[in-house]
């Protein structure tokens, strides 16, 4: 069965404390892996798409990487404004299958 699992469920960091979020998937015929950021009361906002193992993409303090079984979202020297829920998703036949998300809190 196609599954997307994110860990940890919640992560609390001090400002400047780097860490990584994990997204593991079991999908046959991967057609890309998407990362989104969701702030409270808002819809998910697109961050990255990765298509093949070994691919990396960066945006400010975020870097996403992809292997054949999982993706990591690395956060370098985070700031309080990086606090949000980070969702990963994989496209299936007609929909996007989302993980439950990692709720990140960055304390000043």
């Amino acid at each position, binding site marked *: 069965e196609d599954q997307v699992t994110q860990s940890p469920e919640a992560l609390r960091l001090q400002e400047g404390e780097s860490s990584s979020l994990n997204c593991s998937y079991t999908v046959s015929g991967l057609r890309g892996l998407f990362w989104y950021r969701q702030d409270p009361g808002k819809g*998910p906002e697109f961050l990255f798409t990765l298509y093949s193992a070994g691919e990396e993409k960066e945006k400010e303090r975020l870097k996403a990487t992809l292997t054949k079984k999982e993706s990591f979202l690395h956060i370098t020297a985070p700031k309080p404004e990086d606090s949000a829920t980070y969702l990963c998703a994989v496209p299936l036949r*007609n*929909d*996007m299958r989302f993980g439950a998300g990692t709720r990140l809190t960055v304390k000043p």
Partner: protein
Amino acid sequence: GAGVSQSPRYKVAKRGQDVALRCDPISGHVSLFWYQQALGQGPEFLTYFQNEAQLDKSGLPSDRFFAERPEGSVSTLKIQRTQQEDSAVYLCASSLATYQKAFFGQGTRLTVV
């Protein structure tokens, strides 16, 4: 418009009442999705449109849920005889084509009392 617009932002319905949620996708986007998001969970797929055709409605939880996109643009998600378990945030998303990044609206928070 500049983004995906959903209305209303908040809806309180009495149990048994019918509700209609509206989604205005980004102009020109072929694909339109509806998702349901419970508190602390990721979005769960409900249904998918390609232009006006509803190609997948496998995620609709019961026959009380109905969605349409008659002219291939605006979409409406209708829930009949609402139940407390229908309380959730309903998200609409659109994309240029299948497997491309999706743009989400702000969602409609439905509370059934």
